[in-house]
C-alpha cells in the first residue's frame, strides 16, 4: 500500500540490552535484560506507526533508543532527511546535535517534562537558542506563533508550568517539539495521563499538525483504542520483540499472533452490548527469565513443542502484515 512512499526511518536489528550487575562490592555483569531485541521496521513519511504492548515490553526503551536518548547495543537506525541517509546508531554527540531538530519527542508525564523553573517562553524557545536559530526577539515571536498554533495564548509566555493544567502542559510540550520543524516525532504515551475530553483535544491537535507540517509519528501507547484511531500501522511488541506488524485495519480485524489476539480481546469496549470475552489469562512476562524460543510460549494457548525452537522471525503474510509466529505462516 505504502510501497511508493518515501521511507524516512528504517530501524534494522535494533538491540538495547541493560546489564544486570551481581550484588557486592566488585559488581560484575551477570547477565543482560534484553529490553529491545532485534527490532526492525521501516517508517514512511507522513504516516503514524503505533508501538503497543504491555508495560515492560520495551516499547518506551525502543522509542528512546531510536532518538538516541539511549545508546543502542547493536543495530542500525537510518534516518533519511533531505535525501541523505545517516545511521544514528553510531553517531557522535556533536553530529547528533545537528540532527536533533529533525526528530523530537513528546513525553507522557506533562508534569515532569517541563522544567518547573523556566517560563513557557523559555521552555518552548530553548531549542532555538541551543541551535542558534534565532535571536531573543525573533525567538519570542516564533514562540508566540507556535503557542497560538497549539491552542494556547501568546499571553502565556511569561507564566510558569505550575499555572497550567495537564492538557495545557501537554500542548506546551508539543509546541517545544514542533518549533524546530521536525519531520519525525515520537509520542511516548503522549495522551495516557490526560482526561478523556482533553485526550480528544490533544489527539485532534496531533492529527491537524500532522497534516499541516507533514509529520511522521511513532506513537507509543498501551491504549489500543487511541492507537486504532490515530495510527496507520501498528507494531505489537512483546518481551522486547515485535511479534506482529500490520496496517491498523488488518491488525484489528485479523490479528494473527496469539498475543495480539489476547491483547485485543482484553479491551473493554464502551458499548455494553459488546461483551468482554477474555481469550487467555496469564501474567505479564518476567523479562529476566524467558524461554529461548518464542518468548510468548509460557502464556500461549496454541503452543507446541516446536515453538521453543522458533526464533521469532517476522514472516510476511501479506503486503503489509508480518507476524512472528510459526503456527500462522
Amino acid at each position, binding site marked *: 500500500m505504502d510501497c511508493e512512499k518515501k521511507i524516512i526511518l528504517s530501524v534494522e536489528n535494533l538491540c538495547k540490552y541493560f546489564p544486570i550487575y551481581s550484588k557486592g562490592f566488585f559488581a560484575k555483569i551477570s547477565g543482560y535484560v534484553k529490553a529491545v531485541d532485534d527490532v526492525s521496521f521501516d517508517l514512511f513519511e507522513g504516516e503514524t506507526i503505533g508501538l503497543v504492548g504491555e508495560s515492560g515490553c520495551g516499547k518506551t526503551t525502543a522509542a528512546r533508543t531510536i532518538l538516541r536518548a539511549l545508546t543502542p547495543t547493536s543495530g542500525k537506525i537510518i534516518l533519511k532527511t533531505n535525501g541523505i541517509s545517516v545511521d544514528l546508531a553510531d553517531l557522535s554527540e556533536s553530529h547528533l546535535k545537528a540532527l*536533533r531538530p529533525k526528530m523530537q519527542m513528546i513525553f507522557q508525564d506533562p508534569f515532569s517534562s517541563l522544567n518547573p523553573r523556566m517560563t513557557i517562553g523559555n521552555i518552548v524557545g530553548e531549542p532555538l537558542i541551543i541551535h542558534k536559530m534565532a535571536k531573543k526577539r525573533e525567538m519570542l515571536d516564533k514562540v508566540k506563533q507556535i503557542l497560538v498554533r497549539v491552542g494556547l495564548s501568546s499571553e502565556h509566555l511569561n*507564566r510558569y508550568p505550575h499555572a497550567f493544567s495537564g492538557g495545557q502542559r501537554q500542548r506546551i510540550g508539543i509546541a517545544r517539539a514542533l518549533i524546530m520543524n521536525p519531520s519525525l516525532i515520537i509520542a511516548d504515551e503522549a495522551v495516557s495521563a490526560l482526561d478523556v475530553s482533553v485526550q480528544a483535544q490533544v489527539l485532534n491537535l496531533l492529527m491537524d499538525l500532522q497534516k499541516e507540517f507533514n509529520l511522521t509519528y511513532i506513537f507509543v501507547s498501551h491504549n489500543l483504542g487511541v492507537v486504532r484511531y490515530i495510527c496507520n500501522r501498528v507494531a505489537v511488541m512483546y518481551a522486547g520483540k515485535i511479534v506482529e506488524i500490520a496496517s491498523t485495519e488488518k491488525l484489528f480485524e485479523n490479528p494473527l499472533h496469539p498475543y495480539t489476539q489476547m491483547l485485543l480481546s482484553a479491551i473493554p469496549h464502551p458499548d455494553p452490548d459488546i461483551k468482554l470475552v477474555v481469550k487467555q489469562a496469564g501474567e505479564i512476562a518476567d523479562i529476566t527469565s524467558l524461554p529461548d524460543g518464542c518468548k510468548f510460549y509460557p502464556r500461549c494457548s496454541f503452543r507446541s513443542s516446536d515453538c521453543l525452537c522458533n526464533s521469532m522471525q517476522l514472516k510476511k503474510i501479506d503486503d503489509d502484515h508480518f507476524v512472528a509466529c510459526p503456527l500462522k505462516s
Partner: protein
Amino acid sequence: MTKQSQNTSVATKSQWQLIRSRFMRHKLAVISFFFLQVLYLVAVFAEFISPYSPSQQEIERSYCPPQIPRLNSKNGLYVYSMQIVIDPVTFRKTYNENKDQIIKLSFFAHGSKYKMFGLFKSDRHLFGINNNENRFYLLGADKYGRDILSRIIYGARISLSIGIIGIIITFVLGITIGGISGYASGKIDNFIQRSIEVINSVPKFPLWLAFSAVLPDDWSSLKIYFCITLLLSLLGWTGLARVVRGKILSLREEDYAVAAYLLGASRRRIIFKHLLPGFTSHIIVSLTMTVPWMILGETSLSFLGLGLRPPIVSWGVMLGDCMNMTTVANYPWLLLPVVFIIFTVLCFNFIGDGLRDASDPYSL
C-alpha cells in the same frame, strides 16, 4: 474576577517568588529570621552596642551577679549599685543590692574609646553610664570582672561568623565534589562516595585533638580562627556533596532533562540551566541546617580548649570558664552564652524548616 487576577499573578511568579511568599507564611521561620538578623546586626556593631570592651577587667568586682535594670519616672532607667561584703573567714565575696544608691543608665553614653571597623573613632555606646567611675553588669561579671553581656556580644562575632565562613567553604567543596560524583557516575562516583564514607567514619574528636596539637602556639588568633573554620568545613562538606549527588542523579532522569538532551543541549547546559536551578533551594536548606552544626562545632572545640583560645572571645571560649561544678553552682550567669547558642541554633533550624517547606515546588 479577583480570583482570576490572583491566579494570573501566581502564574507569572517565578519559583523564587513563590518560595518567598510561602516562606512568609511560616510564622516561626519568619520570626527566627528576624531575630537572627538582629543578632547579626548586634555582632557587626559590637563596639557600639556593648557597654564595655570584652577585655576590660575590674578584678574587685569578679563574679558580680546580674544587675536588673529598673525604670521609674524620677530616675529613668537605672540599676542599684552593688555593695561588696567580704566574709572575713572565707574571703568569699557576696554582693548585695544597695537600694539607696542608684546608677543611672543613659542611651548613647560616653564610655571607653573604640574604633568602629578600624575607621571611626568614638566613645559613644548604645547605653551605659556617663560617669566612668562606676560599673554595671546587666548579665553579671566573670572571674576578672569582665562584663558578660559585652563578651557575649563580641563573642557573637566569632561564633556567628564561623558558621557563615564555614558554609562558604562547605558550599564550594560540596557542590563541586557532589556534582562531579553525580554526573560522572561509574568509577569516579564510586571512589568519591567511598571517600566520603571514610571521612564520615573518622572519629571527630581525636582528629580535632590531633589538629589542635599541630597548631603552633605562636600563631595569631586570626590564623587559628581560620584554621578552625577550615577544619570544620573540611569535615562538613560530605553531607552537602551527598545531597547534590543524589539530586543530580534523580533530576537527570526527569523527563525535562531528557527533553533538553533530545533538543541537543550540551551537558553543561543541562547541568547549569536545568538541573542546578532544580535544587538550589535544597542546597540552601541544607546549608542553613549546616550553620548551626558549625556553630556547635566551634563551641564544643573551644569549650574543650581545642579550638579558639583566649584572648579571643567566642561563646565556646566563654563556656570554657565554667568547666567546674562549683563555678556553675555559684555563678550560674556564666552559663548565659548557652542560652544564646541554643537560641541561634534553634533559629537556624526553624529557618531551615521554613525554607524546606517553602521550596517544595508541588506543595501549595
